[in-house]
């Protein structure tokens, strides 16, 4: 569990349009890395290349290297399905399977990996829901539809679903942007706990959130509309927020951004 990620010279395209250019960064195991930057600078695109979800968009492709503990996840011999099993993802909008019960949602990824005895499934489902701080709220209604939960609960259900398969890395794309402040705090607490076991990369619009939850922060920016986004700098979160190396980062963080 918990592997490192090495990205070198990653460029991301949608058809002919280059959305992100020349990103290199390293992500340590059992750390939280936050991506910040203005919208459209390619944070989501970078995140989605880390588990090969980028390429499901028609016409989307990328160049460069992404290594998971030294193994190239874009090597031709690697099946993207296996990459996604190893690197879980939580989306901006909570997306539990609407026709499935809470239980089945959490078990969905496990069931893809083959049959297991019901007792084992029960255990993993409970453990994952506990880890996602949702167990106490749903333990009496596991057979109810997941879509009936509140937004914050749904997002925690999605986190439970993602961690049920014990991924090496957990990617989160603005997981709190659709949630109220209390649910947001609940998820931030959760990230703090999950960090002990998982490598986490989180995209966020909210700089306080980045400062609160992350160990390292990467700032992305783009020169203008139609220009590719770039990683301006990535460093310890403390340093980024107190004394960044780049002027653009400082401007963005202090709100002096164009």
């Amino acid at each position, binding site marked *: 569990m918990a592997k490192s990620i090495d990205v070198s010279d990653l460029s991301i395209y949608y058809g002919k349009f280059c959305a992100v250019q020349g990103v290199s960064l390293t992500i340590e195991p059992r750390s939280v890395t936050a991506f910040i930057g203005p919208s459209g600078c390619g944070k989501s695109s970078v995140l989605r290349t880390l588990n090969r979800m980028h390429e*499901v968009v028609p016409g989307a492709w990328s160049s460069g290297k992404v290594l998971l503990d030294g193994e190239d996840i874009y090597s031709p011999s690697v099946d993207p399905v296996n990459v996604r099993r190893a690197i*879980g993802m939580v*989306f901006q*909008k909570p997306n539990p*399977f*609407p*026709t499935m*019960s809470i239980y089945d949602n959490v078990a969905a990824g496990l069931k893809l990996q083959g049959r297991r005895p019901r007792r084992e499934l029960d255990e993993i489902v409970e453990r994952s829901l506990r880890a996602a701080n949702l167990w106490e709220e749903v333990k009496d209604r596991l057979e109810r539809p997941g*879509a009936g939960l509140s937004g914050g609960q749904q997002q925690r259900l999605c986190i439970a679903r993602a961690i049920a398969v014990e991924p090496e890395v957990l990617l989160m794309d603005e997981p709190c942007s659709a949630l109220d402040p209390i649910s947001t705090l609940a998820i931030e607490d959760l990230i703090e706990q999950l960090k002990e076991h998982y490598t986490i990369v989180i995209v966020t619009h909210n700089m306080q959130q980045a400062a609160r939850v992350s160990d390292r922060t990467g700032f992305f920016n783009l020169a203008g509309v139609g220009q590719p986004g770039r990683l301006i700098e990535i460093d310890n979160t403390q340093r980024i927020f107190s004394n960044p190396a780049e002027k653009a980062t400082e401007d963005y963080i202090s709100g002096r951004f164009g």
Partner: protein
Amino acid sequence: MSDEQPPIEEVLATLAPAPAPLSTGRSVRPGDRIFAVLSGGASLTLLLIIALIAAFLLYRSIPAVRADTTNFLTTSAWFPDSTPSTFGIAALAWGTLLSSLIALVLAVPVAVGTALFIAHFAPRRLAQPLAYLVDLLAAVPSVIYGLWGLFFLVPQMVGLQTWLADHLGWFPLFSVGSGSTFKQTMLNAGVVLAVMILPIISAVTREVFLQVPRDHVEAAQALGATRWEVIRLAVLPFGRPGIISASMLGLGRALGETVAIALVLSTNYVISWKILEPGGNTFAANIALQYGYAADLGTNALIASGLVLFVITLVVNIVARGVIARRREFAGAAG
């Protein structure tokens, strides 16, 4: 400040138009009212037409059912114009349901498979023309399917049916008494119906599959689902109510199909499981074939059988709605 200057309120009043009063005297805008009347009127007209049809069928049926000397629902013979008048819809109902059921069983999997292929597997360059072709097939009149069934399909089906009778004859459905020609059989009628309803089922389910939200698909993909698993986790559950509705649409067409059945089936009034033997009948085909020969009572008897078909179709639709509604709680956006 001199006295000539108008008070400030007046200056402001000339600058800003007076705010529109909230009350205009009416609480409904005319456009809304016209629309409400038109749409309400249209749906009322529709209900009225259905009620009139039911009333007409009922009005003509009652004398026939009164005159019937046997049980109208359980008798399978059809001699309304003889004395005493003996007729019943048992064989018609049996044949109608059996042929439609065969059609559904054959058509739904193929239709759903085609729809999945077009919506989620085929490259776009192939998917477009395929979708177009399916839509085109859905618009072909049923008499064309009937003729095609009669002259092309029936001869082709002899081999398959012979094989079924030889190898699976122990199974009641496929057993044959003695020397079936395998031509005007229930199975053939079912196959023609299946081909006929396949395009419409496929077209409707395809549209539903295309509307699967990207969220659901990506949720499955991000868990490491293969293509097929994405279909199973995200596409089929979302599409299920659509598949049911489409099947019911197809079933409705199959239940009421007249010409294709009248052309393919050699009709009689026997209730039998043996779908490889010639014979059987349906409401619609019986009405079409008998209408020309029927006297007064016979005509009313046919109308009475039409009423039963009407009720069956209604029940099928209500059941389908029930099935869909029961799943709604779990269906989310699929409604």
